[in-house]
């Protein structure tokens, strides 16, 4: 099995390219949905410790609206779409046209929650279908689940499977940058793609990388 020791910087570059292709499609989908310019890019692909993974997401205690889904098919893994809660509020207010919507009131309206789930669905769907087209691998996302909570609590769930065999995770990080807003407000959302270790062989084989 290819993991930990056998992953080279060339492999990480290939994964970064994969991430960029997925990100481009998801950015287009999100721009269309919100009718504004959204940029997504892959700042890094790296192998990190679980604690560093939490820091990538803003520190274990930062509060996010997080969508989690499993990937099934030729490639398996976990995918997260996490947004700082203020940014999630802005996106959902715009989508459901309700300026009072707030994920932090405890009681989240059903329409807001399902809008967030749908947003996760559309974005991860476009991200993953781009990967599927590119690699010709079958990749199926499951229905997403939503949680508004500390990012550490949310993401550690996706590390459980992996933690059986490793203390490190290869994370394909995709940052979401909302353009035309003041820099301090344009807090970044993230997609985190965490392929299961067994899946790396399939990905590299499909792309002709040894």
């Amino acid at each position, binding site marked *: 099995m290819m993991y930990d020791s056998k992953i080279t910087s060339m492999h990480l570059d290939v994964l970064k390219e994969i991430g960029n292709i997925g990100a481009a499609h998801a950015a287009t989908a999100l721009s269309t949905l919100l009718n504004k310019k959204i940029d997504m890019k892959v700042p890094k692909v790296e192998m990190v410790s679980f604690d560093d993974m939490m820091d990538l997401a803003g520190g*274990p205690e930062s509060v996010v609206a997080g969508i*989690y889904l499993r990937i099934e098919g030729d490639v398996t893994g976990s995918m997260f779409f996490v947004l700082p809660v203020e940014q999630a509020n802005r996106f959902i207010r715009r989508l459901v046209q309700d300026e009072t919507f707030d994920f932090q009131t405890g009681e989240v309206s059903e329409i807001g929650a399902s809008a967030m789930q749908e947003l996760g669905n559309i974005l991860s769907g476009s991200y993953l279908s781009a990967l599927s087209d590119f690699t010709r691998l079958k990749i199926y996302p499951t229905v997403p689940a939503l949680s508004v909570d500390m990012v550490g609590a949310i993401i*550690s*769930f996706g590390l*459980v499977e992996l933690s059986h*065999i490793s203390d490190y995770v290869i994370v394909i990080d995709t940052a979401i940058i909302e353009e035309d807003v003041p820099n301090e407000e344009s807090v970044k959302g993230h997609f985190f793609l965490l392929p299961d270790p067994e899946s790396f062989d399939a990905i590299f084989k499909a792309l002709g990388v040894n």
Partner: protein
Amino acid sequence: MNAQGQIVKVGIADMNIAKAPDKIRTSGLGSCVGVVLYDERSTTVGMVHVMLPDSSLGRTETINIAKFADTGITAMVEQLKIEGIQSYKLKAKIAGGAQMFQFSSTRDTMRIGPRNVEAVKEYLKKYSIPILAEDTGGNSGRTIEFDPTTKLLNIRTVNQGVRNI
């Protein structure tokens, strides 16, 4: 050492020891369980951040002992023994083991929170360590901080505020 004390941090699948006036904290517990072991007469305490129920689940040659309920609790009991605390004097406070997402699926990993709690309780029982307080289950993330002076476990959640147990 100043009277204010520092915060000793425990990462995910990590363990550590703190002595008063320092406090010990682990952040963003979801399905993981934070286990605090202490002796009421001592101000030296240990905390383990358990991620998986059983080391037999590990498939690597060298394992991170703090990751599993069985090896983590055993290692902490041993470490506290080195600090001069006998295991028969130990008490525990535990928190975590939430189910962060609601799925229709019954896959085993989806129940990891409750399984971690069960495993922690089983191993504490093995060492006859009583659990004096717990805040487990539910579907909220928790940040926990233990004060070796007061022996109180402070639990912070996003939606349900802060409390001490």
